[in-house]
Structures are given as structure tokens and as C-alpha cells.
């Protein structure tokens, strides 16, 4: 079975925030909640500025699932991590556990009272009946059941944000990297291994 994944190509992202807008519009996300955000590093530094679009990454071993005291998370056969708002108590543990800051909490009243957790659903709705009013009200659109993919990925103008079957989007990304004619440009590569052009071994160096 296909495994749903997001992949953001930092070489293509132009920080337009189109994905953020598409998500908010498609799912009618309330004020103060952003299921998706665009993060920019080295902002303003020519040549070093990179942006990526971040939301729930639907982890294979999701820390939010591990820490939830009421066990409201579940993973579908397609690898989409979803949660049940009827069980959620809004404690915020998942927010502390998530390395991407994906869980969001709408303000439910005065004095900073937290509401039920809200996060990216990969446009796959929730435990309610597919495409029902209740499902839309709690979790937003269920595009997967409509034979579509997440609105953010489909709306991305530069196709930087890829979403869908992990095997297919990995192939698409691999093709891109090969076509660019450079070494690997996966986000974080430079931090981990140094820039490819600075890594050239000095002439005459012994292996």
C-alpha cells in the first residue's frame, strides 16, 4: 500500500506562503491556528537563504502518539497520523513532543484556555464518516476520499512542496536532483556534511 509523505524541495520554495493559504482556505482553519508554516533560514543573506514548508510530517514513529495520555492518535494504513478530537483533552503534551511544532491549539476561552488540538490531516479528515459535515467541522476537508491529494501540495506554484505516495515523490525528487547536475541538495545536507563544493579533497592528498 502507498505511504503518504510530504517532501519540500528547498531549492524551489520561494516563500510565497501559497501552501499556508491553501490549507487555511481548504480546511477553514480557525484564527490563531496554522496547520502549515513556511520557515526561512539565513533570511536576507544572498545565496544562503532557504525556505521550507513545514506541517505534520506524519512520522512513522510519531512522538505525539507516544506521549498522548488519552491515546487519541492513530495511524491509517496509508501512514497518515490522525487524531480523535472527541478523545483529545487539549493537554499540549503532543506539542512539546513534536519536533516540527505541528500540533496547534485554538483558544477556547478567556485566560488562555486551550481547546482541542488541531493539526495537518494530510487532507484526510478524521474518524467521522468520510465527507460528512461532522468530519469537515472537526478536521477539515477529506480530499483523499475524493481521489485528490493535499491542497497545499497541489496548489504549490513551483511544485516545491511534494505530497502523495512516498515512492512516487521520492522518484520525482531524485530526478530533479540528477537534472540539477550537483551533489545532493537535500535540506540539511550542508549542515551535516559541509557544502559539496568545499569538500573537494586537496590535490595530492592520500586516501
Amino acid at each position, binding site marked *: *500500500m*502507498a505511504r*503518504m509523505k510530504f517532501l519540500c524541495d528547498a531549492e524551489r520554495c520561494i516563500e510565497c506562503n501559497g501552501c499556508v493559504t491553501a490549507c487555511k482556505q481548504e480546511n477553514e482553519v480557525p484564527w490563531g491556528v496554522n496547520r502549515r508554516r513556511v520557515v526561512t533560514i539565513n533570511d536576507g543573506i544572498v545565496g544562503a537563504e532557504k525556505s521550507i514548508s513545514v506541517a505534520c510530517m506524519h512520522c512513522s514513529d510519531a512522538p505525539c502518539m507516544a506521549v498522548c495520555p488519552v491515546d487519541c492518535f*492513530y*495511524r*491509517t*494504513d*496509508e501512514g*497518515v497520523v*490522525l487524531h*480523535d478530537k472527541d478523545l483529545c483533552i487539549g493537554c499540549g503534551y503532543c506539542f512539546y513532543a513534536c519536533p516540527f511544532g505541528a500540533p496547534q491549539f485554538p483558544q477556547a476561552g478567556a485566560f488562555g484556555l486551550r481547546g482541542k488540538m488541531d493539526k495537518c490531516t*494530510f487532507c*484526510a*479528515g478524521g*474518524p*467521522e*464518516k*468520510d465527507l*460528512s459535515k*461532522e468530519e469537515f467541522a472537526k478536521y477539515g476537508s*477529506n480530499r*483523499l*476520499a475524493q*481521489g*485528490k*491529494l493535499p491542497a497545499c*501540495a*497541489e496548489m504549490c506554484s513551483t*511544485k516545491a512542496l*511534494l505530497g*502523495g*505516495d512516498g515512492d*512516487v*515523490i521520492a522518484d*520525482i525528487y531524485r*530526478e530533479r536532483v540528477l537534472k540539477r547536475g550537483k551533489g545532493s541538495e537535500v535540506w540539511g545536507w550542508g549542515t551535516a556534511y559541509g557544502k559539496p563544493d568545499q569538500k573537494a579533497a586537496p590535490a595530492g592528498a592520500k586516501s
Partner: protein
Amino acid sequence: MKNQTKSRLSRRNFLLAVGAGGAATAAAIATQAINPATAQPATNNDKRRGRGYQETAHVRSYYNTAKV
């Protein structure tokens, strides 16, 4: 003396009536609470099944645009 006995009895009747009414209300609330639970649309297994991803023409068209 007779009056006192009568008033005690009527108070008992009143308390009995209140008790019976309360029990009936509690039963009605319990029935209402059970109904939504039985009307839950999804069981745990239903939740975990796939959300209906299929490689439709729409999805294939998206993959093609991403290849550009």
C-alpha cells in the same frame, strides 16, 4: 395529634413522588447518553483503515506537473 400524623404522611408521599420522578429523569438521561455512543460512525478498526487514496487521473495529473 391527628393533624400532625396526616401532615407527616403527606410529606412522605411528596418525597416518594420526587424520588420516583428523579429516577425516571435519570433513566431518560442515561438512555439519551447511550444513543450517541451507539451511533458512533467509526470503530477503532474503521479508523485505522486507509483514507481512500487511489491513483486517480487527478492524482496522476498532479504527479506529472511535479515532474516539470
